């Protein structure tokens, strides 16, 4: 993967988005540098998840611009997608596949070369999130916390530089919360960055560089 072409992991200016006639974001300006973990706070409907989805290239802004490591989210979405790890509120797993099969599918889609390499990466990711014992179980039987852990394992397979996480601590027990903080810290310490949507500050308090609050669609 090419080196970042900007000091800013995220550089967004005046990002706005509306759904129908309702403006959810009204011009958000935000910069996140490499090595930073930024907590994104705000009440329900303040536009946190919408901002994250725009930065992840899943939604287009109606106004403003944003780039990830210097790559414009609208003009160069493939470059952006190659650098981010996005964790949505829903884990986005296939319930009739096992944990291992879900990760094998993700590894293939990510372009992992060779079955041996993929298997090693999958085993390492499962071990990292504490799901080795459940590798061959179907996701349908997983608790919400286990599904969240598996979604984190999938995220690790992509070796992201920038984490965009939407309430990553929800449904996790104390051990899971520590695991999640550990994963975020590892990636940020390797020169990455993280933008974390939080409902409560407490679980992530120890790892945040700073916080940002969205009110009425503005930062």
């Amino acid at each position, binding site marked *: 993967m090419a080196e970042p072409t900007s000091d800013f992991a995220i550089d967004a200016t005046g990002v706005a988005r509306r759904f129908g006639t309702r403006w959810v974001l009204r011009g958000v300006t935000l910069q996140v540098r490499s090595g930073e973990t930024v907590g994104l706070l705000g009440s329900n409907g303040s536009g946190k998840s919408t901002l994250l989805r725009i930065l992840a*290239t899943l939604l287009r802004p109606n106004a403003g611009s944003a780039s990830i490591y210097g790559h414009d989210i609208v003009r160069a979405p493939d470059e952006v997608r190659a650098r981010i790890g996005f964790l949505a509120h829903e884990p*986005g797993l296939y319930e*009739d596949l096992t944990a291992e099969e879900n990760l094998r599918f993700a590894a293939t889609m990510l*372009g992992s070369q060779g079955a041996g390499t993929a298997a090693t990466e999958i085993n390492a990711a499962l071990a990292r999130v504490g799901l080795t014992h459940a590798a061959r179980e179907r996701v349908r039987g997983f608790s919400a916390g286990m599904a969240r852990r598996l979604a984190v394992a999938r995220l690790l397979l992509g070796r992201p530089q920038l984490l965009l996480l939407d309430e990553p601590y929800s449904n996790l027990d104390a051990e899971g919360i520590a695991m999640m903080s550990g994963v975020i810290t590892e990636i940020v310490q390797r020169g990455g960055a993280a933008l974390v949507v939080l409902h409560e500050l407490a679980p992530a308090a120890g790892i945040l560089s700073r916080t940002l609050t969205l009110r009425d669609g503005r930062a």
Partner: protein
Amino acid sequence: MAFADDWRRVRAIAWKDLTTERRSKAGFNGVVALGVTILMLFGFALGPDTQAIRDAAAGALWLAALFAAVLAFNRSYQVELESGALDPLLLYPGSRWAIFSGKLLANLSFVGLMLVIVVLVGIVLFQVTIPAAWPALIGVLVLGAIGICTLGTFYASMASRSRAREVLLPLLLFPMLVPALLAAMQASKALLGGDLMHEADAWIKLLIAYDVIFLIATHLAFEHVIEA
């Protein structure tokens, strides 16, 4: 290298869709049951006239297959929508056509299997004599299935973001399928009747042209349909 990666993705998506479908079972059983039921209803509607039943066999078979296939197309994006897996799918690197091709391949396998069962039931139910040109008839079945699945998979992706997708899909799909359906029905009817007037060739050519045009067009347009 990029094409090899995309081809790996095509196979992975097809494998994933077919595996989830095989394990959930409900989808395939429902689709086949619907196809067979429609075929039987046509049989009842046509009455006891054996010749009338034979004449209508090709049309009844293709309509039964089409109605049942719509159920399969609706399901093809349902798994992603229900579990929120569409977002991760769109965030993977690689060409968007790989997602479409993977889903098309899975739908073709699924609908192809359903078609085999419906055809076998139709042969018994409508007392159809298997023609000498049966390889050509199989060719028509394959070409018809490709046409139906190509547009079905495409419009299912378009309708998938709508709340009224179950209604929207047939409304979008059926008018566009008229040429393919007409060609498949007429070619099948001609072949089942021995093709004395050599009509089948022209209909098969139309079917091939339809498939080629829409295979290219849908692969090119898919990216614009699936992006938010």
